[in-house]
């Protein structure tokens, strides 16, 4: 379970507060107007940006002061999720070890992860030789292999067309169900959230609200969400 305890994030004139919990194993769509702080919230949870007050807890353990690599978090960013000078397999292998040389078991695990996301036999290609959708799958394979209990997705598929994006989201859903990971998915398209999110976490007007089941909140959106959705 992820808990944000009286969290305050400030940056110049920007201010965001959060005091909420996300139960384990849920897929949570993080939505809200641009500039409201959706990405900032994920960056704080991942440890890239320090909060000015409050704590981040995972299963009751305070992780506020931990460096990003030691948090129970895997994250995919909007862009630059893969190193262009490494092959797909080498990129995925970074989930297991920062070393260039892999043990036989590690190499096999990398291969399995690539198989799982439907990229069998493409491990030797570099990102430039893969399509946008395939690149997204490589990044997902790495996240899968990191086997962290919390997966943060900061619009990593926003450059893909609607059909491809839908396919990627379904893959996220499958992987999350297999691994039992909790997923926070930032999206500017409510359709994404509707497609895979169990809950919606609304970030608006300086507050990150506690997640509410998707069907429930979309049926009776609060004023801030209604303003964002525009109807």
């Amino acid at each position: 379970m992820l808990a944000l305890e009286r969290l305050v994030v400030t940056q110049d004139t920007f201010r965001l507060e959060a005091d909420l919990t996300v139960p384990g194993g849920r897929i949570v769509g993080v939505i809200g107007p641009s500039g409201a702080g959706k990405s900032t919230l994920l960056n704080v949870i991942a440890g890239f940006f320090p909060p000015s007050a409050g704590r981040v807890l995972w299963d009751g353990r305070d992780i506020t002061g931990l460096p990003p690599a030691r948090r129970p978090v895997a994250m995919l960013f909007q862009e630059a999720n893969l190193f262009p000078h490494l092959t797909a397999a080498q990129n995925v292998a970074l989930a297991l070890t920062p070393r260039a040389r892999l043990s036989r078991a590690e190499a096999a695990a990398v291969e399995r992860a690539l198989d799982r996301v439907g990229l069998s036999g493409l491990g030797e290609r570099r990102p430039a030789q893969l399509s946008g959708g395939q690149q997204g799958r490589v990044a997902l394979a790495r996240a899968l292999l990191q086997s962290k209990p919390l997966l943060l997705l900061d619009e990593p598929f926003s450059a893909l067309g609607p059909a491809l994006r839908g396919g990627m989201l379904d893959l996220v859903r499958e992987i999350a169900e297999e691994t039992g990971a909790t997923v926070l998915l930032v999206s500017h398209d409510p359709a994404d959230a509707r497609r895979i999110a169990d809950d919606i976490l609304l970030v608006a007007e300086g507050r990150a609200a506690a997640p509410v089941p998707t069907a429930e909140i979309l049926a009776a959106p609060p004023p801030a969400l209604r303003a964002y959705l525009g109807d």
Partner: protein
Amino acid sequence: MARGAGALGAPPWAAAGAALFVAALVLAPVIAVIWTAGAAGRLGPGDWAAVRFSLTQAALSALLSAALAVPVARALARRRFPGRGALVTLLGAPFILPVVVAVFGLLAVFGRNGIASNLLDLAGQEPLSIYGLHGVVLAHVFFNLPLATRLLLQGWLAIPGERFRLAAALALPPGTVFRLLELPMLVRVLPGAAVVIFVICLSSFAVALILGGGPAATTVELAIYQAFRFEFDLGKAAALALVQLALAGGAAMLAARLALPPAMGAGLDRVVPRWDADRPGLRVQDALWIGAAAGFLLVPLAMIVIDGVPGLARLPGSVWTAAGRSVAVALVSTALAIALALALASRRGELLAVLAIAVSPLVLGTGLFLILRPVAAPGDVALPVTALVNALMALPFALRAIRPELEAVRADYGRLCLSLGLTGRRFWTRVALPRLRRPLGFAAGLAAALSMGDLGVIALFADPERATLPLQMYRLMGAYRTSDAAGAALLLLLLSLALFWAFDRGGRIDARA
């Protein structure tokens, strides 16, 4: 990224060590110079003449280079023709061309027995004399006209194409287009370009050594050398070094106040469509400027090759030995420059490196000589000192090539690296160095070529047994062994270009995406 950003930097010990090393390498000689100069007598009238000459030739070189660059850059900016890309690349070549080689090529064209003099002779005119102020200025224009042209070309290409389209739609005549669009850019870019060239020429040594000399044409750098070699007057050399320090320091401060676009930026292969320039008269005018500039650059280079080939086959063994020494010095200097650049790739590091370049090589050399003299024979330390000073001189260029790329890697991949635990040494070996191959190769190529062709500090320290190739070539010229000198010039040219090419190419091969 606010947190953990230190994990993607150079190790603190390396950054601090490199900063201390550079600071000590610059400050210790400066202190030694000030110390010794304080005890020396006042400077004589000849020394003030050197100050005046330094300023005069630098000012003339800067004005001429900048003024001539305007029509050349304008022609390149608005004309498309076969070989344009090659010509723009060639404009970058003087930077890695050894000074003594270029001067040799200029002598083959403009010297007493050069092709220009021969043509004048056919017409019944007196041959040219290239020695003295106009020779020094000619050589400086040869080196800096291309630099100024590249800077201005960048300025021209930075004017949005829509403005020219708008001007065409309004049917504005060329004069109005110049006043409205081009003049404001020139006012912004030209002073900076001129000041940079002024600063470069102010510390000119090798050009003045070969083409200057005598009471009428001695720069302060050359006067330092002469006080060393001919008068054995270290006190006077130190006093002159102090004068040079003040001159170059003042000029560098002046330069720092003027913003300048980076001269090595890519994207000079663009041509902005220009409807106002689509007139036969302007076409001919531009063609003439481009032809003249290309000839001015290419003919001396061609002469180096033509004159050098016969001599290359039967070069004396001493030249080959000197060549070997130069390559070794260049490789050591390159390794040092790159290591320092990686450790100092930060804003503070770049400031430090610019500070280091404000102190001229001969001032550094004088100071190091003063420090090392009690403990070692100058000849014994000539090559290490040369490698060291060359590395320092290449450092700002290496930093300018590497730092922006390193910062881009951190901006693009910083969070990914932190989340995957690619920090410290792993960040460097698995991410930064592979991503930086191109700028590293380019920087190493520059450093190697600069060191290979350097004729500066080595002239202060070297004895005949330990000359580098540029020094050996200079001696051959001084001894009127023209054929040997021509062969050595070609060898030096080839080695400098080969070193640059090999490193630069090494950075490009397999540097995918």
